[in-house]
């Protein structure tokens, strides 16, 4: 169950990273299709990260001499990570939901006061969440896996941004 929740959160994070990387790069008025493609790219990114994490996890488990202890240790670490990630995700989703309120002031305020700062602290939340998760783990494998997943999570937005920036630069080169 813990792993499933982490997987869902990774996909949600990928989805929002995809969206953020694409924002400010398309000057059309109607861009539902554009954003749908961005969300899809984000989900694919999140899926790739989850797959890589799973492969690493399976590889570590396969080569481990103390699988039961490793499993218990990993579950404990993952459970502790959720204590940081779930409130953060809930806050983000709550503020996104607030944008359904038909008030331009409330919608704008969610951007300025909440979603902006929440975006700013995303890398910090990732670092704190993973470190908090692996802080009490007894096995080196758990710690290394945690750091590997952290590196993957942090690189996702960077990679999506680079890709989007390249596409935008190419488009603009054709215009001038």
């Amino acid at each position, binding site marked *: 169950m813990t792993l499933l929740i982490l997987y869902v959160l990774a996909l949600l994070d990928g989805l929002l990273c995809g969206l953020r990387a694409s*924002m*400010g*790069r*398309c*000057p*059309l*008025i*109607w861009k539902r299709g554009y954003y749908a493609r961005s969300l899809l790219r984000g989900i694919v990114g999140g899926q790739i990260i989850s797959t890589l994490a799973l492969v690493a996890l399976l590889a570590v488990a396969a080569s481990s001499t103390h699988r039961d202890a490793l499993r218990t240790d990993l579950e404990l670490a993952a459970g502790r990570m959720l204590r940081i990630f779930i409130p953060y995700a809930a806050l983000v989703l709550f503020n996104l939901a607030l944008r359904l309120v038909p008030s*331009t*002031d409330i*919608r*704008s*305020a969610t*951007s*300025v006061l909440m979603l*902006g*700062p929440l*975006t*700013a602290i995303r890398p910090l939340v990732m670092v704190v969440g993973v470190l908090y998760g692996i802080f009490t783990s007894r096995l080196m494998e758990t710690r290394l896996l945690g750091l590997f997943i952290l590196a993957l999570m942090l690189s996702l937005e960077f990679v999506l941004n680079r890709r989007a*920036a390249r596409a*935008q*630069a190419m488009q*603009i*080169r054709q*215009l*001038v």
Partner: protein
Amino acid sequence: MFASWNPAQPEITDLIIQHDPCTLERLPVRKEELVTVFSRFCNRQALRVVRALPENDGFLDARAIDALFLTVHWEMQRLSEEFYHGRRVWELLRCVIASIRQAGAREKLRIVDVGCGTGYTTRWLAANIPFADYNVEFVGMDLNSTLIAEASRLAVAERLPCQFIHGDAFSREHSGNVFLSTGVIHHFRGEALLEFLRRHDQPETQAFLHFDFHPWFLAPFGSMFFHYLRMRTAIARHDGVLSAARAYAGNTLAEAARTAAPEFASGIYGANIWNTPIPRVFQSLVGLRRALVPEFRRQLGRRALRLGDLK
């Protein structure tokens, strides 16, 4: 506080593209002149940006600057989207149009977006407002031919019923019934602000709505944080914050409008949120022919509370 927040200096984007005021032809810009300007203000952030701009034999590379301008304006559109700027403009414009109609005007009304850039506001209005029902035409105007070409391209791509013109919005041939602008008015400093407002007094012009940053002591901090998060180009991060620092106080704008265009009743709309002391990011300078004021207030309904003194 910081040299880059000194409101006495121009923004970088004010200087890197220059036009002949008569022919509107693009003029070459010497990079060293920009360095001199920002050195005078000890603005190291601007100097870093300027020094990184591509050049040919000491002159800014026009093509690279155009590409940079487009990148920045695409990013700026994101801010307008996040602040639901199109809706905010329509909220006021709808009342202005209704007031003009109530006064007996039946002809097609020309709404001119002054300094429209890539024309987000005009395109949003054209995309979302049933223009035929209101019998209006939306026109975006700018002195920058690259931005106008881009605005036209985007309007054609989405088949939007609006047009974009490279030229002077206040010239006899292009003048409008309603002038509006976004983030433009703070670029006019001192006497230039009065001259800008003076030019609104044209026979067919009934009203103007100029949206710009609302200055208060935390605005540059908020702007810095927001631009750091949302904008990707160094030039946008610099100019965005400086814009917030250069924005005029509502009183200054209203007084300037009353002095320069006394035929209009002028005031500030939407300075604060829900009549609390919390400021909105944008406020708008509203000017109307005096005969339109009572109907305009009626059209605003409960939103009339957001309107300051209109005199």
